[in-house]
């Protein structure tokens, strides 16, 4: 009678450590610590300023291959898509960024602002308002 209970407890512990392990994962850094990624981010900004948006996207994707969980890169990608008037991808990239942000409120707020702009441009004023409110909320917390 006791044995199965202990077995269950054992698995319970594994499961607990597993799931809590997920929870304790520190949020990704907001600024790239890898010089390679920092360099690519700078290149992407330069390409964006020069209006070479496809190049900027290519460079950001290259950076994401090195740091796929860096919310800043996803956010930058969202911004470039916004400039390209590809509002659907802009919103999606910002949402993807959100899933890696963790607790960095200013990054979250910025993502929601991008989502707001994208929704507005796509003709979804209600959705846009909700997104902007979310951004404002995050900033005043």
């Amino acid at each position, binding site marked *: 009678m006791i044995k199965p209970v*202990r077995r269950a407890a054992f698995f319970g512990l594994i499961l*607990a450590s597993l799931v809590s392990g997920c*929870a304790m994962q520190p949020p990704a850094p907001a600024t790239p610590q890898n*010089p390679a990624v920092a360099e690519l981010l700078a290149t992407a900004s330069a390409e964006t300023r020069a209006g070479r948006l496809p190049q900027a996207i290519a460079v950001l994707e290259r950076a994401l291959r*090195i740091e796929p969980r860096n919310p800043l890169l996803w956010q930058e990608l969202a911004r470039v898509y916004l400039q390209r008037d590809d509002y659907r991808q802009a919103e*999606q*990239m910002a949402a993807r960024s959100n899933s890696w942000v963790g607790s960095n409120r200013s990054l979250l707020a910025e993502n929601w602002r991008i989502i707001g702009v994208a929704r507005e441009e796509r003709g979804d004023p209600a959705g846009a308002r909700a997104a902007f409110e979310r951004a404002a909320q995050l900033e005043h917390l």
Partner: protein
Amino acid sequence: MARKQKKKTSKKKGVLRRLAENRWFHLGLLAVFLVGAVFVAWLDYRVRDQFEGRRFALPARVYARPLELFPGARVSADTFIKELQQVGYREGLRGQQPGRFERRGDDFRLVTRPLTFWDGPQSSLSLQVSFGDHGVRELSGAAGPLNLVRLDPEYIGGIYPAHNEDRVLVRLDGVPKALVNALLAVEDRKFYLHRGIDPMGMTRALVSTLSGRGVQGGSTITQQLVKNFFLTPERTLRRKFTEVVMALLLEAHYEKNDILETYINEVYLGQDRNRAIHGFGLGAQFYFGEQLRNLSLAESALLVGMVKGPSWYDPHRQPERALKRRNLTLTLMRQQGFISDEQYLQASAAPLGVIDKPAMGTTRYPAFLDLVRRQLSRDYRDSDLQSEGLQIFTTLDPRVQAVAEHALTSRLNRLDSSPDQGLQGAVIVTDTQNGEVQALVGDRDPRFPGFNRALDSNRPVGSVLKPAIYLTALSDPSRYTLATLLDDEPLLWQEPGRPDWSPNNYDHKSHGQVPLWRALARSYNIAAARLGFDLGVPNVLDTARKLGVERDLPPYASTLLGAVALSPLEVAQLYQTLSSGGFRVPLRAIREVLTPEGKPLQRYPLAVEQVVDPASAYLVTAALQTVVEEGTARGLRSQLPEGLSVAGKTGTTDDMRDSWFAGYSGDRVAVVWNGFDDNRPTSLTGASGAMRVWGDLMSGLDAEPLSLPLPDTMELVWTEPVSGLRADSECPGAVELPFVRGSAPTEHAPCARSRGNWFKRLFR
């Protein structure tokens, strides 16, 4: 006798005279002349048309991903040297000559080749790379430390027309003088003097042939080009005549150097399995891993010597014969004053120097190239892919591919021991974040370009589809959580017009009330089917569609338990969406396409679409982790390195005809299928077949553990599995599970209730 002869001659004269007076004869003569003129004009048209138009059809060249080097990159010194060899770098530096390297322990010096990618060029760099325990430690160039450098991507194959002719075009000014001189010395010493044919040479050849001293060439370079370029290889007098006329025409129209350059690009230099090596440019790469302009005198002489018979003088198979032929070429060069005695001695003493590259044929990765070709065919015509010389940069990671091939082949060899039953398999590995296909194996023999099971083998998926049911449930946290108790009591399903359906558990037992996560972990069929009916089959199929299954799934009860057939690629797409937190990322094999000159033509960008709420995706991933921790895939734990947490699902179909495993680590999704092509039972479950391949694969990849940040809309709560009630860490058997905030059970289990009261009392 004499009279008779005389009579005959006079008769002949009479005939001739009469012929000369006959106007039909004149007309005939005129006709022959006209036909001849038309024939020559036609040849002239052909010569000019083909020579001036596109001279060569250039197959699209397909490349793997380039290796990214940066401080901290997870690349070991051994991996690096393999990569260098794969992309044809040669040992030993020669000044700034690109494509060479030197190794001292964990420190490398190399000169990279100049490259052009979609986002711009990268010039040739002198690099120093040092490796430490965790990958690249230091990276520097001539001017100091570098942040990031791309190595040349491995050439993985071409997209060829039917005859599989491959070449790399070169211009005459990129051809070493020594090679041109060797050509002149051996093939056509009067090339710059004659007008296309060399009557003396032809006479010599004719005499030699007629006198039985063997068939001799006697063809000029121009004639050889005409022969290779315009004519079939038969040896008839008529063809010889055509050849001579065309050679004269070619010379009449074009410069010597144009003809020589075309010859240099046309010449046949050997066979790499089913791929024909044409031109000295590709010859230099194929035999020496070198650009043509960098070839030494000895290397040039070897290639020129091989022209006479590339398979007879094959330096890999017939090194002695090839060496003799090379030295004969050098002797001729010395005799004709092209090289000095000293040069001759030095070059003829040099080793052959050919690189030992495994035969590749049109590609070493037929399954992956098949996927590339299919994705390209959405945007390009076959004829363009075969002739425009496009450069295709793909997502293949040769290191991952090698591990995947080895995992499948070695495991199947063990599972399918004597006598070999022909057990087959397929593997696909993708990146969890960007959907890039890193490896694809479609056959137990990964080099065999046959049936591509990764794409074309549609097989029942069994329990591999179950996450779609559970995701549908968990998307409604007000009704279902991981702790919700499901009913695993026997079930009989009756549907008008369909046979009665009564699913069974694998152990042929029913397990009463089981928590949802455990029902998935242990793959209970009855609980899953009941859950599917509660949710509605169409809703479950809708979830599968959202996850990326594009084909129509039959809306029958049996579909819930995976009676539906999918390809490994489709299953990978489904798990891809789960692995990236509910964002569907279309699987891609191509990054970008460039013109032969390196101009950007097209990109296949990363696209994401959130199709599932991140919280629900998180819950399914957590449940799929328990499959490995305590469920049907717990055997995987001992196979994986310590600390590598993964999520996955086994799949076994009726009578064990199919063995599946699909799952993901933090950085990679992998799907494995095992089974027989003729659908015979295998005696393998998902756990004893495909899962073993999957385990070998992930262990060999240095995979990143799966650890997703808990979304801020979620919390962790202890529950008691038996009752599904709220518990605490002290309760026996309690598990801590993630819940969408507000969805966790509120009622306490007895064990937690008592302590809770004690706790409350303490603070009262």
